[in-house]
């Protein structure tokens, strides 16, 4: 009983509380690669705190869409954050269906793009156009990479996938790896990382995500930044628990839960390291080369599904 409560508290709070740390760790590692000292790994928390206490300027062209988009975007990441397997695979959740996750994340994308258009700035509008183009093309790869795991485990519920998956299916190993490869591409696109987008600049040539939130300030900017950090962590958690559900708690014991938490932490750290290395070693792609990458993700996943029998 206590364990179930602990797990639910982790489900509710882990993603929003840990996500700024992930951003901090990635930035720190990147700074070390660039021979810089870098800011503390807790700097994103300070940034959010500072933004939450600042005053705001809102464009007079903006409507209530601009006003409410940050809440909707942030909430969609919270809802998804609590509907994906984190440390335990045995709890049941009505929202844990793969399509529900994907489409709830789409709610966030939808309102983010609308908010980008709402202020009537050219930056925001083109950011929205690029974001929606990428999101539309990433959808196929996203659904199919999760579908590969769903077909292997004969369920589309993410908790059940992470539960079944602890038995290493050697016969499905190739499919799992291909699906994971496709998933990584989609992850980079959806979370606006290299080579799709540069999360560190406001230069208009590279901007997708940053362009849409250009007009935000104060609390609303904090929510937007926080939501994108949440989204990154959600993808890390999906990647670690669907494709490598090693260590995730299968029975309600404290020992299993402890291992589950430790395994999740290690896997997420590995993801942070991988992202930092990737961002330090590749350049951003030209916009019209990105569809090739996303189609590769889709095709690789189709191959992965066909290989299952």
């Amino acid at each position: 009983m206590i364990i179930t409560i602990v797990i639910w508290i982790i489900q509710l709070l882990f993603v929003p509380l840990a996500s700024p740390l992930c951003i901090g760790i990635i930035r720190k590692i990147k700074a070390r690669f660039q021979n810089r000292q870098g800011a503390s790994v807790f700097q994103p928390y300070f940034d959010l705190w500072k933004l939450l206490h600042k005053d705001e300027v809102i464009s007079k062209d903006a409507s209530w869409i601009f006003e409410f988009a940050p809440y909707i975007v942030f909430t969609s990441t919270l809802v998804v954050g609590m509907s994906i397997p984190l440390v335990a695979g045995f709890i049941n959740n009505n929202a844990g269906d793969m399509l529900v996750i994907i489409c709830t994340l789409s709610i966030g994308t939808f309102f983010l793009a609308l908010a980008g258009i709402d202020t009537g700035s050219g930056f925001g509008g083109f950011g929205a156009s690029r974001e929606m183009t990428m999101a539309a093309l990433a959808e196929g790869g996203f659904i199919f990479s999760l579908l590969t795991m769903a077909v292997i485990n004969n369920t589309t519920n993410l908790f059940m996938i992470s539960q079944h998956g602890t038995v290493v299916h050697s016969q499905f190993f190739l499919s799992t790896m291909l699906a994971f490869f496709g998933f990584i591409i989609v992850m980079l696109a959806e979370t606006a990382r290299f080579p799709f987008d540069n999360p560190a600049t406001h230069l208009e040539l590279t901007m997708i995500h940053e362009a849409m939130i250009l007009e935000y300030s104060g609390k609303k900017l904090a929510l937007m930044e926080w939501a994108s950090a949440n989204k990154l962590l959600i993808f890390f958690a999906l990647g670690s628990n669907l494709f490598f559900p090693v260590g995730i708690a299968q029975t309600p014991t404290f020992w299993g839960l402890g291992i589950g938490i430790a395994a999740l932490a290690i896997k997420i750290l590995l993801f942070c390291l991988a992202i930092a290395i990737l961002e330090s070693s590749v350049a951003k792609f030209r916009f019209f080369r990105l569809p090739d990458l996303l189609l590769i993700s889709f095709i690789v996943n189709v191959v992965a599904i066909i290989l299952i029998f």
Partner: protein
Amino acid sequence: MITAITLQYIFLGLISLFFVGAIGSLLFRKNDAVTSLWSNSFAILASLAGLLFATLTYLYGHSLSFSLGAIALPIFSLSFHIDKLSAFFIFTISLISLLCSIYAIGYVTHFYKKYDLGVLGFFYHAFILGMLLVVSSSNGLFFLIAWELMSLASYFLVIYDRNDPSNIKAGFLYLVMTHAGTALILIALLLLYKFTGSFDFETIASLSGAIPLSIKNSVFILAVIGFGTKSGIVPFHIWLPSAHPAAPSHVSALMSGVMIKTGIYMMIRVFLYMLWPVPTWWGLTILVLGSISSLLGVLYALTEHDIKRLLAYHSIENIGIILLGLGSALTFTSLGLPSLALLGLTAALFHTLNHATFKSLLFLSAGWVASQTHTKNMEEYGGLIKYMPYTALFFLIASMAISALPPFNGFFSEWLTFQSLFLGITLLSLYTKWIFVLAAGSLAFTGGLALACFVKAFGITFLARPRSEEIAHTKESSFFPRLSMGLLALLCLLFGIFSGSLTWLLQTTGKDFVAFKNTASFVSVSLNQQVLIGHNFSFISLASLFILFMFIILLVIYITRFVINKNQKISMGTTWDCGTDLTGRMEISATGFSRSVIVIFKGILRPSIQHNVEYHDSESRYLAKSRSITLGIKDIYQSYFYQPLHRAINTVSVRIKSIQSGNINAYILYIFMALVVALFFVL
């Protein structure tokens, strides 16, 4: 106590209401306001009667058969057969026509003193009546009469706004295409008559075992093309993007929301009821057609900047999605998996209902925008959310529903369709699995592109700054249109939240068929609207998702607004403008928004750019007087399907023309030869 006789009387009553409404509209045509009130209130009454009739038929639980009049010809009778499938379509048609008629009370005022409202009322009633008769008739010839009534009435509604020559052209294209389709349907019915000796649908169904497979296959091809033309399946859809926008908006809503579904109804009726059991390749063909329609529909929608044409292309996309459900149902039933087939059919029916609600809402709200701004060009909109906040909200809700965002209804039916495709991928063997993978892939991309398209449609129309002078004179919708749009928006949400109960109801619809007589259901629904597919294959509950989402968002709003930094100052400023004055022309336009998608899909969409520069001095070519760029999209089905067809018909016609010499003797020779040939065949 519901009896068959009561139901018959209600049905006759609703038909006579339509007659009274139609005739009355013509009689009172001298006074615009009276005509409008008369025709719309009778349409409302008749639609309410239709809703009552459909609900009672569901409760009655058996199918209803009766004939009208004493016409006892061997092949023709005014006979009706109303089972749950018909009742479901009667319900959908009545629901949408009820809300469209409420909307029309406030909407048709801008036709006053311009066009004859009596004619509008007459054809409006004839149109709805035609649709109701199509889904309830059970005699092939009677069905064809109803089908023609529906087609012709809608043709006259398409050309109602007759001062615009493009509407006349659109109407003509519609007339030609729909009759080409009807011709094929007629051949299909005649083939069935030849082998069963009856035009009665029930008799055909009971004798279908006697029909040879080759004839069944030809009927299938003819029916898919014939009904597919009405439904707007690619490549038979060319009439749809031009005809739907031409009609008055409440008629567009009916055409897009329900009329194209009559084609789907007849496909279900012919394939699953009359010709069942079916070969596997039928279902696979429908899956392929559905994939192509959904993908191409949404791609062409993205290229459009005429708001009603954009919505019309989305109807093609959604018909594709319905076909994916129907195709999987046909495939499963032919492979001996009736439980899964029932799931696919339920998905198709649910999407039919959902598409009817959100698409009519989109057409009604877009229609209000177009009637206020006097243009359908999205490039001239912008910032409308400040002038018509309710219309904007309703359009937003419908956009979210059609883009399959939870917890709205569109998400649920796409989810069901995805489930039946996923189950196909999991269970079927290699060759059929490929088709299901293709279908699921196209549905996935369709969802993503539809999301992009509705960010464009809503964002460019309602957000940012106005891009033309007209915007400042626009007004919010009046009471009746707002009421009807509000009800539709509410339905979009409720159909999503109560998707569990609706799924259960729609399953009973499917169970009426012989094909699913004793089928164990693959879907179970629990009280909290949780829908479970198979044995833990997947389960969701949109009701709990909705409650969770609302709870968290209220919490987030409360904490950020009233707990953290309560004394925050919010000031208004201008958008970052780089030191210039921002005008409406500096925003992103509809063309600009979709340009990157068009460039990415240039293999299919074939975009063209034409630069025209006019110089002050054509010798030196330094100073340009004016520059213009024309962006175009090439229709591949036009250039690779219809134009070659057109050329072929022309070539043949020219050849045939040479026998028309004008010489009487030659004509007498032709008559003699025809006579000889005829005698040869007869004797």
